[in-house]
């Protein structure tokens, strides 16, 4: 973008922000409006990083992330909301759990809250189950080396944010047969080639007989003590026919909070009691 146009866009964009919070903490935007000049274009001959190389680095970055996590404790909140697009969306179920994970084989979940708008006859009908292991396949399923053949990739854009260069990479399943894999876009922080956000795109329903469509599905990560971990999974879907006592559409979300990472979990936490 030529610099004048860039500045115009910048001024237009920044004006409301200045008006709203002139004294807010953090970086402040400065605008040079007394000097007008043009910067000549520079032909850069250095080879650009190829998409394949970026994908390799993402796979390595995600693997490195997984290997750095020795033990993780977090609070997970799962919610289901019915009729989300109506005037009166209703909370249908909520589960809050504290989850302790260590290594690849230890996991313990403590249920903190278990609430249902309509308590089921059979207790625990809707529940959260966490498996052991600190990998987050739900985030990087399309970027694992074994999945490379199953997807097409292309770079949608690059965003420079401070000293972070963020690549937006779109992916779509190669196969059109059977239950389709989702496509989507990931935001990759090239500082350590970690996926920091993902938006999934289901062009076709995975189960047309039951699910009319998945309108939107988003996976967000957050940085905690230097580690990128799940922040939220959130999805809206619509059934083909209304489900009794539930409705036609629903939102489901799992929020991850209150992380404690690599602070050491005593193995006694995973010692099973002997049943009397």
């Amino acid at each position: 973008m030529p610099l004048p146009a860039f500045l115009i866009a910048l001024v237009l964009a920044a004006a409301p922000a200045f008006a709203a919070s002139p004294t807010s903490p953090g970086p402040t935007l400065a605008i040079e409006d007394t000097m007008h000049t043009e910067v000549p274009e520079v032909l850069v001959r250095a080879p650009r990083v190829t998409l394949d190389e970026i994908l390799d680095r993402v796979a390595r970055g995600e693997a490195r992330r997984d290997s750095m996590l020795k033990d993780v404790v977090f609070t997970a909140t799962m919610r289901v909301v019915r009729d989300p697009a109506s005037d009166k969306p209703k909370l249908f179920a909520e589960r809050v759990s504290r989850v302790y994970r260590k290594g690849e084989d230890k996991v313990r979940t403590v249920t903190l809250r278990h609430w249902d708008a309509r308590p089921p006859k059979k207790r625990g009908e809707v529940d959260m189950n966490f498996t052991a292991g600190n990998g987050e396949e739900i985030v990087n399923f399309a970027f694992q080396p074994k999945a490379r053949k199953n997807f097409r990739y292309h770079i949608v854009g690059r965003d420079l944010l401070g000293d972070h260069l963020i690549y937006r990479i779109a992916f779509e399943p190669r196969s059109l047969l059977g239950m389709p894999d989702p496509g989507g876009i990931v935001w990759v922080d090239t500082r350590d080639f970690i996926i920091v956000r993902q938006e999934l795109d289901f062009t076709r329903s995975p189960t047309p007989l039951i699910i009319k469509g998945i309108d939107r599905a988003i996976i967000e990560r957050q940085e905690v003590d230097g580690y990128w971990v799940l922040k939220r999974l959130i999805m809206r879907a619509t059934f083909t026919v209304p489900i009794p006592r539930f409705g036609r559409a629903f939102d489901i979300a799992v929020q991850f909070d209150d992380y404690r990472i690599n602070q050491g979990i005593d193995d006694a936490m995973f010692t099973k009691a002997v049943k009397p």
Partner: protein
Amino acid sequence: MSARAWLCVAVMVAAFAPAQLPAQEGAPADTSLHRFLGQLADSTDRYFGLIDAPVDTAGLDSALAAGLEKPWYGPRSRRRVSYGPVTGFQRVDGALFGASLGVNSRVGRWSVRGDLARTSRSHDWLGGGALAIGTRLRDVSWRLRASGGRRTEGLDRDNSERRVAALRALLSGDDTRNYLRRDGYSVGIDADGAEWHAGLEFRDRLESPLPVTTLWNLFHRPPEATGNLAATFGRTREIAFNAALRLPLLPLRAQITQAFADQALGSNFDYRRSRVVVGGEITAFRHLSFVPQFAWGRLSGDPVPQASFYLGGPQTLRSLHTESMGGTGLAVARLDVIGADDLLALLHLPHPAMFPIQGGAFVATGAAWGPDPFGGPGSPASGWPERNAWLSEAGLSLLYHPGVPDEDGYFRANYAWPLGPGGGREARWSVSYSRALDLLRPF
């Protein structure tokens, strides 16, 4: 403010901040990234609304303390019990009614299943049990399995279609599959990697022919088949090896199956049965799938019907009735073209969202050769068919992918026209339920 505008702001902040904001040293170095992600998250919040309301944390600390104080007996029950009816219908047993019961671990490491059913016309009890134990070592999943029982099975061991065949038989008598009784057991081990599969199995089964007992159907149509090709009675002990591989650099998979029955194993039969399949999917314009498949099979040794190859039906040549030809050799090549879009939506025809109908077309050619299990003159048992043995066809399909109970299953209605010479064949409809890559066994 658009995302692009925010990007401009972020760029300028990043450029000027170090020089002009020395007082912000205490702020995190990557505030711009977090603020950017925060903006995207805010947009998500606005879309989803209620579900993102803050969690009420009241009482959670005390619930945690209480939860940690209680004795912990390990993760919640890892077993899942499943049960259901067993039903079936074909002309050798009549109707089949029974029940199944299974227990398996939630993560699929082990499973135990059993079923028992009574046949209405042959007045027999059929059923059996199966046990499987699995584990994962590095990137390879291993599975040890054993099963046994008394069952009626299809004579064509490559034809896995059961449900729709039973429905066709019940409604209109349109079932030309042949059946035999198997009593015995098998044990096997499987290994699955990301791009490959390998399996080894030992089978010890008494195989016996079955007479026809049931010729009625609900619509009182004359049944397509009134007989049942008799299996050769005897004990089969065989070792079977199967392997599948995703071919490098090509969007194709290859699968090879070898079965050896030998008198040295105590088998009454002595044969070697080989089958090779190559198939895959090539997409075009993001709306079309080209699905080429090729299968070749060869049986050497005793040409028993229960080990022979069969031609005809939705999984081979759709212009032929199922299992209408057979031999000790089989070759089939088929190309399906399947559209990904909903035909009814493209035609602006109102229809329920649960019924997206896809369109398809196909061309195929195939041949069966060698000694004829139906007692015909047959042809020389060589590795490749004679030129005049090939039959060809072309056709159109309507496909429906429900997504359940099999994630890759399609209901298909096919209309196939015979091409070239082929002994008085006529264009015909067929209905099936199978995967798009139906010559390849799933792995």
